[in-house]
């Protein structure tokens, strides 16, 4: 096969869902830091979200599976720690999808802007942690529903 362009690879990776929050793609999450060809080897640079996140291993497997399925033979996955991942790297599309999915997107203030279900701004924090390392638990005081907030780091 002919060598796919870097832009093409980015598009393919944008179709790979995050294993824990499948409405986000790996590109939406901001963890793909670089895609480059080094001669005939495709190098994909990935940064971890949280250092202990168990999804990291699965993510690497899924990147590999997705690219192999497209015919990439020589692939090198590189890990990059610095600059450390920040939720500022979440794409606009990703933020919108998170909210539609019921997870409040990260806000610089550290608190969600509004309830992802009813839009109320009357909110209370239940816990600083949630079902995955990247989320905290909040509750809406208007519709009384609990919801998750994507932690801002």
């Amino acid at each position, binding site marked *: 096969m002919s060598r796919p362009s870097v832009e093409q690879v980015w598009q393919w990776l944008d179709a790979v869902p995050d294993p824990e929050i499948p409405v986000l793609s790996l590109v939406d999450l901001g963890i793909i830091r670089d895609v480059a060809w080094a001669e005939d080897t495709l190098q994909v640079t990935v940064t971890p979200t949280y*250092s202990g996140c168990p999804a990291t291993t699965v993510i690497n497997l899924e990147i590999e599976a997705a690219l192999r399925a497209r015919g990439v033979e020589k692939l090198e996955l590189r890990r990059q720690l610095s600059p450390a991942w920040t939720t500022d790297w979440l794409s606009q599309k990703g933020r919108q999808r998170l909210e539609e999915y019921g997870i409040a997107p990260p806000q610089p203030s550290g608190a969600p802007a509004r309830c992802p279900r009813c839009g109320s701004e009357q909110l209370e924090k239940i*816990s*600083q942690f949630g079902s995955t390392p990247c989320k905290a638990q909040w509750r809406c005081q208007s519709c009384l529903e609990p919801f998750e907030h994507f932690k801002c780091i």
Partner: protein
Amino acid sequence: MTREEALFQFLLRMGDNTLVLGQRVSEWCGHAPVLEEDIALANTALDLIGQTQMWLNLAGEVEGKGRDADKLAFLRDVWDFRNLLLVELPNGDFGRTMMRQFLFDAWQSVLLGRLTNSAEPRVAEIAEKAGKEVAYHVERSSGTVVGLGDGTEESHARMQAALDYLWPYVGEMFASDAVDEEMARAGIAPDPAGLREEYDALVGRVLGEATLSIPEGGFFHKGGKDGARHTEHLGHMLTEMQWLQRAYPGASW
């Protein structure tokens, strides 16, 4: 001691602190007072174990004998561990666990802040990564210490008892030895004594808000970070943590 040997010891200290505390905190999984706290403790433990992988993998790389984080975590016995005594102490009640977490988080947040300027780029990048997680940990643990300290008569008494018990283990964080001197000389890590002022300011502010009193007296227990004398508790913890590798050497999946 060469610089590489000192760096190896320093990295073991960083990784063993997070490993041992991570294991301790994970003992709460399924036992915390309420579900939200259970999840928070498990997530904190997960972050600490993740940081352990980074520190101990680098330690193994620096040592150059083919040991990685798993080998260092599971194939060493008590006398080779280099963690502070504070983190190996049993959990006690929820209050004591959170007090220990706060005393450790506060120290780690100050230390990691300094390490982001380390002359060793591999140390600086781990510190940058871990520092973001720890900023979040200290926010949670200080909030809990204030909530329980300035809470009911019962919760206040328990938090004061926890502080009285744990405070004599804080001093070890700031004691310097030959490893620290070498790291400071190389610009890799700060002299531990130089962190005390910032630590005392942070801890003093939170404990004041929590209406708790820091015990008087300068005595402190030591022997963890140089491995000279761990408490009896670490060995018991390791028998559980390392059980699989001891029973089935080399097992993997």
